[in-house]
């Protein structure tokens, strides 16, 4: 089972961030939301394994309220 990698792996993180900002620029909220959903689906399929995706979902969830 592949574990989700959380150490830095991208040589140019600013380029990734800028690409995401560019993609969302001027989009209405529902289109933005759909764009993110497409990214998740495309990347999950690229990873091709459920385990790291489920770990990512768990990490991304807001912490339980105290």
């Amino acid at each position, binding site marked *: 089972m592949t574990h989700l990698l959380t150490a830095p792996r991208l040589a140019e993180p600013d380029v990734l961030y800028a690409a995401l900002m560019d993609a969302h620029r001027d989009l209405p909220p*529902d289109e933005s*939301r*759909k764009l*993110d*959903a*497409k990214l*998740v*689906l*495309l990347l999950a*399929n690229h990873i091709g394994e459920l385990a790291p995706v489920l770990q990512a979902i768990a990490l991304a969830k807001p912490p339980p309220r105290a």
Partner: protein
Amino acid sequence: MHFTPPRFAAFAPPRGQDHAAVVIAGGGLVGLTAALDLARHGVRVVVLDDDDTVSTGSRAICFAKRTLEIYGRLGLGSRFLEKGVTWNQGRVFHGEREAYSFDLLPEEGHEYPAFVNLQQYYAEAWLVEACMATGRVELRWRNAVAGIENRADGARLSVTTPAGPYTLHADWLIAADGARSFIRRALGLAFEGQVFRDRFLIADVVMQAAFPTERWFWFDPPFHPGQSVLLHRQPDDVWRIDFQLGWDADPALEQQPERVRARVAQMLGSRGDDVPFELEWISIYTFRCRRMQRFRHGRTIFVGDAAHQVSPFGARGGNGGVQDADNLCWKLAAVLAGQAPDALLDSYDAERIPAADENILNSTRSTDFITPKSDAARAYRDAVLELAAAHAFARPVVNSGRLSRPYEGAGRPAPDAPLLRNGRPDWLLRHTGDGFTVVSNGVVPATGLPAITLGQDFEDHSGLAAARLGLGHGDAVLLRPDQHIAARIAAADAAGIAAAHRASLHAVA
């Protein structure tokens, strides 16, 4: 040709108290299937039904392969194939283009197809005829259960009829009285699960339409923007159209025939198909996914919608109920005949509760896709549909209903396979079921149980029977009366087969 509903005479109440070994409350699809199955096992059955006819409206129209195999075992399979509309393909559209298609039976060598569409009233009418032909089923029309006392020795029922009430003691009661089960409520048994905030309109439309014999499902079609539509073909030029309406729709308004006609005309007109049509049946529904905590309550046993309820997307309601009857009836017959202990009936719960959970899980997932509950859910749903146009990976994510398959967690039903008998084409499943059957590849020692010997009385000319059952030479499988694989016996000997037979009759959950 059109169906004329039969009208059955009301059953007049017997004098004094009445007694029956097995009573089935509810003469619908599942109750009648159970009655026929029990009668074929030699059990006398009383069926109580509050109505005097079969199903009003087409209702459960999609009969799945496993259900058809069960009706094959019960002697009705050829009627389904002859009258029903056979289909294996589904097609899903998003807007104006196709998003996904699927073939539910991509392999040859099965007597029955993935699905046959047939109005429920035909199935019920045939079941009534078949029940009467056994001479063991007493159908008591317009007899409604109005009270129940569940006792250690059976159920004491208060029954009302047009000619007055009577009391009926049932040694065993099968509650097949539907999603609003009186018996379940009268016994105060919980029926909990998820409610979906959406409304759907069913229209059965009589027309000569040019759609192919496939299941067609649209998300956001131009003729019904923002909602979904499902189309199925039935016999007699009847088409089932299921329009999603949304939670805010007004049920009284939406049921008005003129309004339904306008929706259908818009659908046909958008395809340039302005054929004349008539409305045969209109129904508005909402649905829930829920089940009872246990289906067996002593000598009262719940089947079908009375025990569990699903959304219609996936055809898992009627099919799940028929498969309950398939599982239960041979066990009850074996207990009544003294061949098995009462505890065998606990295996009905052990096998059918997980089956109901699987149906509820699939049905809930489909509903979450069809009826998004939040902006995020809608964004994901639309993302999948849009990606599916250009990218193969997204197509199997499209969920317009995961269609009924048999539960395989507690022994799977034996797969069918073509055979030759005296040189003539035949089918494996035709020669199994009702009783236990040994199927072996080559001769194995006789046990007294009915046996199918591949390579002797049956030629496995395609090799599919041995391959699908996983039988090497000298191996055997023991099939239960419901055609499920009870045991595999490698290098089968008589003692091994007999032990497997004993174990499946004494199965304790």
